[in-house]
């Protein structure tokens, strides 16, 4: 299980569910500047960029992945901006071709002689920060369920789709556990759909990374997200271990009270498919 080759003939999909509720305007716990909404938008744009780069070749971008970003706040809707607006799942080559804009951002890069130089590098933007309304997580998961069902109909043998939910608060539209379980029960011939959850910090409670039990989780909401998270397949567990995380055989794809560095690491680990052909 979780060994299917990812190829243009047998692509897989990544679906991100992004909390866009009003509280995402707040800064991360303990940090003075920058809203969670802006930081998450940067993280998702950075991830989309890396996914495109992983698939780009001299003759073009190979469609190993189809990617969707669903925002949930005052509305539940596909969160791409620009020409991709309104699209659920988009082939990675189309994402590469159609960013909303490409900004120049300063970055420190190796100079080839052991040092670093500051350079302006291109930073494409597909997804803009929004922070407005309640937290309809259950409805967002229902939307994800329907998108993934459609994907699996057309790709029954794919590497199982990965759904990553990023939120800073409790759902305001009821208990999402049943829908989450239903997503995790969906499967391709290579294994069950993977649902991971990333809780963003707005308090000083201790961070919990890839837990294998609820023992150190501080409250009911953390326990809920734990229950909503898949046990990590061995390959992803090994990737997380190589990044310095302490992993157990039953570790789940869940980080509670995360900071931005962990968000980026988590997104990278969760989408680091190595079996590209």
């Amino acid at each position: 299980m979780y060994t299917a080759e990812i190829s243009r003939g047998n692509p897989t999909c990544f679906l991100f569910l992004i909390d866009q509720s009003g509280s995402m305007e707040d800064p991360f716990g303990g940090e003075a500047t920058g809203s969670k909404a802006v930081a998450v938008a940067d993280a998702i744009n950075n991830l989309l960029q890396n996914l495109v780069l992983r698939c780009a070749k001299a003759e073009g971008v190979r469609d190993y992945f189809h990617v969707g970003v669903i925002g949930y706040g005052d509305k539940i809707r596909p969160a791409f901006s620009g020409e991709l607006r309104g699209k659920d799942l988009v082939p990675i080559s189309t994402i590469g071709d159609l960013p909303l804009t490409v900004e120049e951002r300063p970055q420190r890069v190796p100079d080839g002689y052991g040092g670093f130089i500051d350079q302006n590098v291109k930073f494409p933007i597909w997804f803009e920060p929004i922070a407005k309304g309640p937290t309809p997580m259950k409805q967002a998961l229902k939307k994800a369920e329907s998108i993934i069902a459609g994907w699996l109909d057309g790709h029954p043998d794919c590497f199982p789709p990965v759904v990553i939910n990023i939120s800073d608060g409790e759902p305001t539209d009821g208990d999402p556990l049943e829908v989450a379980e239903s997503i995790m029960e969906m499967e391709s011939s290579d294994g069950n759909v993977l649902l991971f959850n990333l809780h963003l910090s707005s308090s000083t409670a201790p961070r919990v990374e890839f837990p294998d039990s609820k023992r150190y989780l501080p409250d009911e909401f953390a326990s809920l997200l734990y229950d909503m998270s898949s046990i990590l397949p061995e390959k992803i567990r090994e990737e997380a271990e190589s990044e310095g995380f302490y992993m157990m055989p039953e570790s789940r794809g869940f980080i509670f009270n995360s900071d931005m560095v962990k968000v980026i690491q988590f997104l990278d680990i969760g989408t680091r498919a190595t079996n590209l052909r």
Partner: protein
Amino acid sequence: MRLVSTTYTIPKRDGCPSENEDHFFPYLGEIRRDHHSVAIADGASEGFLSRLWSKILTISYVNWDTTDVDMRLFIDFCIEMYEYQRSRYLERREERAAPLKWFEEKLMAKGSFSTLLGVSFEDSTPWGGCWTSYSVGDSCLFQLRYNIIDVFPEIDSTGFGNSPELIASNPAYNKELLNKVRVKSGKFLYGDIFYLMTDAVANWFIAQLEEGKRPWRTLDEYLDYDREGLTMYLTSLRDEGRLKNDDVTIARVKTLED
């Protein structure tokens, strides 16, 4: 000394020949009398223009044609060649009014990556001579004299992964490279056969050796009499999961007396 080579390459399943990022050199069966070297390289799929980079590495290695390679000089030379070819590629894009897209610019700035395995022969005795091989990465060399008598680099069938050591076209990624270069010398007798293979087929070959089998017999039969059959055979190995779905390159070199 005469060196006669037989080469074979196929792209990964679902790939077309132009997407094959492996490269071998020389192309000709009878290696030029003034040349005594053969090289193969496996361009990394994560890189941009990896096919160009693996081509430059192999052709340069064979033209370098020495058993005593100064790897620092060699790689600097290859990078210079790559930069020249890269600027020509950019000119062609401009001529076609097709400027680089943002992701092409980023990948091009990072550069290309490839393994390299080269071997050079020197006929120092009436019965044969010495060979020296340089390797970066997981392409493998096998020396056959009735049986396999040498494997370089020494690796078992579980030792192949997704992150081999690579030579980069961007010097920023070559800082530790000279520590990763492996060198081996040995002796050959006329009649010895050398196989150079990129990782996927080398992995299968080594697994067969570990099972006490003689996989060179299968390869020889196909290489000599039925190259289409070899493609079908490798495809069936891929389907059975016994051969990783990757580009495959095999270069067989026979060392013959004049």
